[in-house]
């Protein structure tokens, strides 16, 4: 008998919500702002969004994994707390400089959370079975590709801080790459589940490793060129890395051939070296990464400030509201982990990394327990997207790898990213519900699948 564990999910959600209320109070008290005047409105809004999501899952996907929704919610709440804390710092600075107080970011982030919640629910309501997505493999692939190049389009495309990854629509601006990464993951899953047999064929063996047929190299070369294109024309190191890493990993899972990993790695090294030696912006990132201190006043300023912040946090952190996270540029977006690391210390950083690890591990578990190839590939791909993104951005702001501009899933201020990551969780939960649901019939698994489809 498989337990649904929906009440566990609810209890964990309440725990996450309580942490959010306490954290917000701590920010208010520690910064001398007092109890935030709209605390109960914001806390109520967060509770409402989380409760609606929980209810929809309870009804539409009762067997879904009970951990992922609370973990995503807790990460979103931690992000909201830090965004509020940075709002306070910005307002104070503006007040001291006698300049107008900037609009707080926390309310718009809260709005984005509500929109993300609506889309999260929409996934469950519109999509009864994830295998339906397979039908639109190439449609999603095409839309994904268009979204990726959209920022290069005239008029609507916008360059922010040197990277062309924004699209402006009237007053709204969003990062289409965030949505594109989901569509492209669906495309990869649908495409690879069909072609994996031929891609897994081995023609020659070199040093005991089976190599694919040359004509099967087409897809990986195309993916490689697209990645390089994103890097060169959009100057978006992060998305480029994410896109290529995702494709190679999924190719490896689908074909079960290690040779694809090797080929992918060789192509990555080649592309990275090509970009490093031909493009100043890539070279600059690497130079700063190797020795940030030499450039601490210029190109290394961000990373050095980030390291100062993290060091100031130490083991237990300065305490929420008691550090100087606003000294780090882009503290609420790219560098939100530095801000959290300063005020919550390495204890907080470890806790956040563990939350991500839990989320990703659950995602992989969904993939492993899933009974259909498409669902397996899709769940694995979505988990890999999350994992790569977390590693690339947190590794970047802590100086482990060169800094690339990616958002931190759930934590960073920004609507596109928040929405995309919540849709990822929704898709994973959708698949998870399907794979954990006990067989209601006594028929063989193959028939059971058709039966499930027929019930849709």
């Amino acid at each position: 008998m498989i337990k649904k564990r929906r009440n566990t999910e609810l209890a964990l959600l309440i725990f996450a919500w309580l942490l959010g209320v306490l954290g917000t109070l701590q920010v208010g008290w520690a910064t001398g702002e007092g109890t935030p005047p709209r605390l109960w409105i914001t806390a109520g809004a967060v509770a409402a969004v989380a409760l609606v999501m929980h209810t929809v899952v309870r009804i539409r996907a009762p067997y879904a994994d009970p951990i992922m929704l609370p973990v995503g919610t807790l990460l979103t709440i931690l992000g909201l707390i830090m965004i509020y804390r940075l709002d306070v710092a910005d307002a104070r600075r503006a007040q001291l400089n006698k300049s107008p107080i900037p609009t707080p970011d926390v309310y718009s982030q809260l709005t984005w959370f509500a929109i993300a919640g609506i889309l999260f629910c929409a996934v469950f309501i519109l999509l009864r079975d994830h295998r339906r997505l397979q039908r639109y493999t190439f449609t999603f692939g095409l839309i994904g590709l268009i979204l990726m190049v959209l920022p290069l389009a005239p008029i609507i495309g916008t360059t922010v801080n040197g990277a062309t990854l924004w699209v402006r629509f009237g007053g709204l601006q969003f990062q289409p790459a965030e949505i594109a990464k989901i569509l492209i993951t669906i495309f990869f899953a649908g495409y690879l589940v069909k072609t994996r047999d031929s891609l897994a064929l081995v023609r020659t063996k070199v040093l005991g490793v089976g190599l694919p047929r040359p004509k099967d190299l087409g897809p990986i070369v195309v993916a490689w060129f697209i990645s390089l294109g994103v890097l060169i024309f959009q100057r978006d190191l992060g998305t480029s890395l994410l896109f290529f890493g995702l494709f190679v990993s999924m190719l490896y899972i689908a074909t079960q051939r290690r040779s694809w990993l090797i080929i992918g790695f060789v192509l990555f090294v080649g592309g990275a070296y090509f970009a490093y030696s031909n493009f100043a912006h890539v070279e600059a990132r690497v130079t700063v990464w190797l020795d940030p201190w030499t450039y601490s006043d210029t190109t290394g300023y961000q990373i050095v400030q980030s390291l100062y912040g993290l060091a100031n946090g130490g083991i237990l952190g300065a305490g929420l509201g008691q550090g100087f996270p606003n000294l780090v540029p882009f503290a609420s977006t790219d560098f939100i982990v530095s801000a959290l690391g300063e005020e919550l210390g390495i204890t907080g950083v470890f806790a956040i990394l563990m939350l991500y690890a839990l989320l990703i591990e659950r995602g992989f578990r969904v993939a492993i327990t899933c009974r259909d190839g498409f669902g397996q590939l899709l769940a694995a791909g979505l988990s890999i997207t999350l994992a790569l993104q977390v590693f690339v951005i947190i590794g970047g702001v802590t100086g482990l790898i060169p800094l690339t501009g990616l958002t931190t899933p759930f934590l960073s201020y920004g609507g596109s990213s928040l929405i995309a990551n919540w849709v990822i969780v929704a898709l994973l939960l959708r698949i998870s519900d399907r794979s954990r649901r006990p067989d209601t019939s006594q028929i063989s698994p193959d028939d059971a699948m058709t039966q499930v489809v027929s019930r849709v």
Partner: protein
Amino acid sequence: MSRQIRRLSFVFGLLLIALLVNATLIQVINARDYRDRPGNQRILLAEYDRERGPILVASDPVARSVETGNTLTYIREYNNGPLYAPVTGFYSLVYGATGLERTENRILNGKADIFTVDRIQQLVSGRQPVGGAVTTTIDAAAQRAAFKGLKGKRGAVVAIEPATGRILASVQMPSFDPNRLSSHNPADIREYYAELEADPQKPLLNRPVVSLNPPGSTFKVVTAAAALASGRFTADSILPGPKAYQLPNSTKKLRNWNGRECGPGGKVTLEQALAISCNTAFAWLGNELGASAIRTQADAFGFDHSFEIPLRAATSLFPADPDAPQTALSAIGQFDVRATALQMAMVAAAIGNSGRTMNPYLVQEIRGPDLSILQTTEPTQYADAMKPSDSLSLTDMMVNVVQNGTGSNAQISGIRVAGKTGTAQTGNDSPSVAWFISFAPAAAPKVAVAVVIEESGAPEVSGNGLAAPIAKAVMEAVLRQ
């Protein structure tokens, strides 16, 4: 496919460990190194973010934190900055802190251990920690009188309460404005600092406690004290006081400053020799006593020892192993004898305090953020420099200096003042240094003063002409209260 997913998740597990290790390196292993990097504003911001305690003279803050309107929440404000600069020092974004701002930093920023109870309360109540207050021993009237007297000259004044060692005044000229060094404008701080550094008058030097000068004839009181301590001489002992003294084993002669004999027939009493500052008599006396007896006496007054008041004072020196002519010169405060104004004030104070040398100190009380007294400095004795009877005798001799001798400008009507003038050559060509040391009232002194004027450019009388009036003003300022 499950096996591949497991393998990949294992790879991501390794990446997670890399992130954890890297975060540990930054936040734990290298954290201290990063925090101490010069470009890191956080430590200073944290310091400027909380209210730093004041430095008080009596109950008036001479240094205090004032709220500002920018990222650095507080700014340090110095009332009468140049007047109190040798006491307070500065507190600079760029150059760190000096003076009491440096030595009492942990009191002022509230991090000292004596605030543990307050800190726990702050932690519970969530209040920003506030620093403690430091009350100095400085007497505002004495400080102002000294500052006024030094105006237009280059030198220093130190006044001490003889019975306790409390430093009542510590003044230098030229001085600087700590406000400009403690501002929030690094460019202006650097500009002003460079200006001060380039000034040949060295205004940043804490003259009262670190500037070493030959004490000249003021050192004759030390030689006289050694003479009395030897038991071979009294105030009435007759000494040879010719026009010139033939330095032993040397072709050189030491002359009196006025080129005359010190008394009829070249004979003079010890008391009279001190009153007229007779070089030949004291040079002779120096060789009679020997260098080690004079050094023992000087050390009992505090020479050859570094005092922390709590600012670290320069060590005043008596030469290590002088030969006979050098001993003769040392006995009159020349050759390699060097003293700070603080040291000469201590000599005067000890003579007035029945021969007891007290440890000098600048911090009277430590107060908590609520101004409750947490700690009071108790006077401590450094050494027994003289027998009480000898000190009385020397006091009378010094009163005679002011009443009938070279120190007439320090006379205060109705009060017996004990004093001694001095002038010294700092080198063959360099201009002379004028000194005056004194204490009053002679019987039970409330104040002892040392005044040093560098580059006085005038002959022996300059001790009386330039320095004595300042000493008089400082003594009057204290005695008037």
